């Protein structure tokens, strides 16, 4: 039994690896939002999974605007995904900013405890899920009310293998997901390390009080942090739609937990840690499924998380946002 399962992994090594990378790339992009907000505010933004969900609907809405194309391939697909990414980024980034303004800022103004903010985050998460299931999805897609919890589909991708060398196959959607996610992360890393606003974010993460004394507008920095983290989740949402072509009101739930795990695995508060954590988690899930069976996917992933945290409590890369320098 074991020999055949190991054989299974080796004979399908490249497919498992490619699938792990593309899954991990999406985890990593979503993980950035958790890690940035944690770095600046020391807050786990549990509503981030719903920010991702809103991004998928932003992308789906854009597909409808384009008259629900089908079988898009080649460069047209790249252009379409760019449009979806912009739409998802705006939808998610915008709602993240509103979320911060409504759910967190009043608490921060009143110096409420971190625990209060955490409860507010959980409340916002449930509120957004139910809002979409009961109101937004039925209204937007003209469905009867009780169908709001069902998945909404938008088939538009013409799936083909763009690279085919021996046993190594790479489909167009996976290629775009991996390349797109890496590009976004490089861009974000450069933004945080090279620009004035990025310096402000790092300064606030390192020492908020001194940052204020040095003339940094904390509220502006927090808004920028939520906008950037949200936009990354929006791009992840567009890539998710490209890969799976389906979403629903609680699409963010499991993915959000996985992305948060990726952030912790890589070292929460650390941007590059999110990338490492996401990719490692994606690969572990795939290899774990190959060897133990898909029903063990989550068990394997979380066992590895526990093991890593036992020996490296701060995660694989460990350092936090304030220490990450170019």
């Amino acid at each position, binding site marked *: 039994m074991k020999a055949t399962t190991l054989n299974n992994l080796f004979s399908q090594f490249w*497919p498992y690896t490619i699938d792990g990378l593309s899954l991990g790339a999406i985890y990593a992009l979503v993980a950035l939002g958790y890690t940035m907000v944690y770095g600046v505010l020391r807050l786990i933004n549990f509503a981030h999974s719903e920010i991702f969900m809103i991004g998928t609907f932003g992308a789906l809405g854009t597909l409808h605007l384009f008259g629900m194309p089908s079988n898009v391939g080649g460069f047209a697909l790249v252009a379409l995904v760019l449009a979806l990414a912009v739409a998802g980024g705006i939808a998610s980034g915008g709602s993240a900013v509103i979320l911060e303004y409504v759910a967190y800022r009043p608490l921060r103004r009143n110096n409420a405890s971190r625990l209060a903010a955490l409860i507010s985050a959980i409340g916002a998460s449930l509120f957004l899920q139910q809002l979409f299931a009961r109101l937004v999805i039925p209204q937007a897609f003209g469905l009867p009310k009780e169908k709001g919890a069902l998945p909404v589909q938008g088939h538009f991708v013409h799936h083909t293998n763009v690279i085919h060398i021996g046993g190594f196959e790479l489909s167009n959607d996976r290629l775009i997901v991996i390349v797109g996610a890496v590009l976004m992360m490089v861009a974000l890393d450069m933004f945080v390390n090279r620009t004035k606003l990025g310096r402000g974010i790092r300064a606030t993460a390192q020492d908020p009080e001194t940052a204020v004394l040095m003339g940094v507008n904390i509220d502006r920095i927090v808004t920028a942090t939520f906008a950037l983290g949200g936009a990354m989740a929006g791009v992840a949402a567009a890539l998710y739609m490209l890969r799976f*072509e*389906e979403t629903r009101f609680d699409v963010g*739930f499991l993915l959000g937990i996985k992305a948060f795990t990726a952030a912790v695995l890589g070292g929460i508060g650390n941007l590059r840690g999110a990338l490492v954590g996401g990719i490692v988690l994606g690969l572990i*899930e795939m290899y774990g*499924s*190959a060897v133990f069976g*898909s*029903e063990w996917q989550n068990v394997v992933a979380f066992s590895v998380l526990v093991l890593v945290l036992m020996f490296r409590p701060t995660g694989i890369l460990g350092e936090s946002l304030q220490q990450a320098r170019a």
Partner: protein
Amino acid sequence: MRSRLITVVGVAAASATLALGASACGGGSKSGGGDTVTIGFMGDLTGENSGLVIPPRQGAQLAIDQYNATNPKVKITLKTYDSQGKGEQAVPLAKQAITKDKIAGLIGPTFSGESAQADPVLEEGKLPNISSSATNASLATHGWKYWHRVIGNDNVQGQGIGGFIANSLKAKKVFIIHDSSEYGKPLAETVKAAVTQGGAQTAEDAIDPQGSDFSATVNKVKAFTPEAIFFGGYYAQGGKLIKQLREGGVKARFLSGDGSLDKGLAKGAGGTTADGSIIGCPCLIDPSGTASAASKKFAEDYKAKFHADPAVYSAEGYDAATAFIEAVKAGNTTPEKINDYLSKIDKPGVSKEIKFQSNGEPAAADVYVYQVKGDQLPLLGNAKNATVK
């Protein structure tokens, strides 16, 4: 069937007046056709799964209307109980049906979950009940005397589909996938046992129904290169699975059970991706009436009355009602006498012969296979002898 969804209960209720009248006059008929017996129907009539319950209710209504139109001595009325498919609502409704409404029999409850909770109440209240869609195999294991169903259970279904894969498709390598649910896992295991017995080699994997990425499973299927794939689970995951399998270049035939017998399967897979997939079900859905003369007549009558094609479990709802009608025709109007009659009944029905084993299971239960074409699921035939064109 799916454990949540499964049971259609036929309730035959004798009206309070009739039951009282009958006992008062020692069963003698009163003057001129004034007698009625009330039969109940319990299920999810307005909730989110009502799409599975309204067709059997209409089937039962059709049977009873046809009977009443013959101007019999004792007429039957159908009283509906909306359990929303939930056990906590089915239980008080069952109590109400027994003590207050004093019905003579019940069609339902329709789903397996609510049946597991309401059936003990019906048993204690000595109310004969016939489900048209509860398929969980364990329901027959309690030794209930008043419980019956007119649909094959999940084991029957698994053997039927497994036999079809081995004998009709003649697949030598079969990949089995399930969703780890109470419904999907045992069904997949029964199919696996049946195809193994037929000489096929198998491999299996389970998916997480909450997840959206099944690529690990797809890679395993690719490595195994099967001729057929069986999925035990519901259509929402089934559709996604077909989509990801086909995108991954897997061309093997896809099969599934009644949990996937829904247009949502083809929709989830997208376009014509699901075409050619085969779905088995112990239920008969036969709008064109190809299965038998009785089925053809039923389809025509149903269309004439409801202006819609017979849908999932309509024929079973009709058969459950027919069982009670035959009991009343034979002069039985009290729950006890009706139940005695049900233990001996042997009448032709639309979906199958109406005859029960001593544990309440149908004596004969056929499994039918349906083949996806576009967003339709036309009947291919009985799993025993259907062939794929």
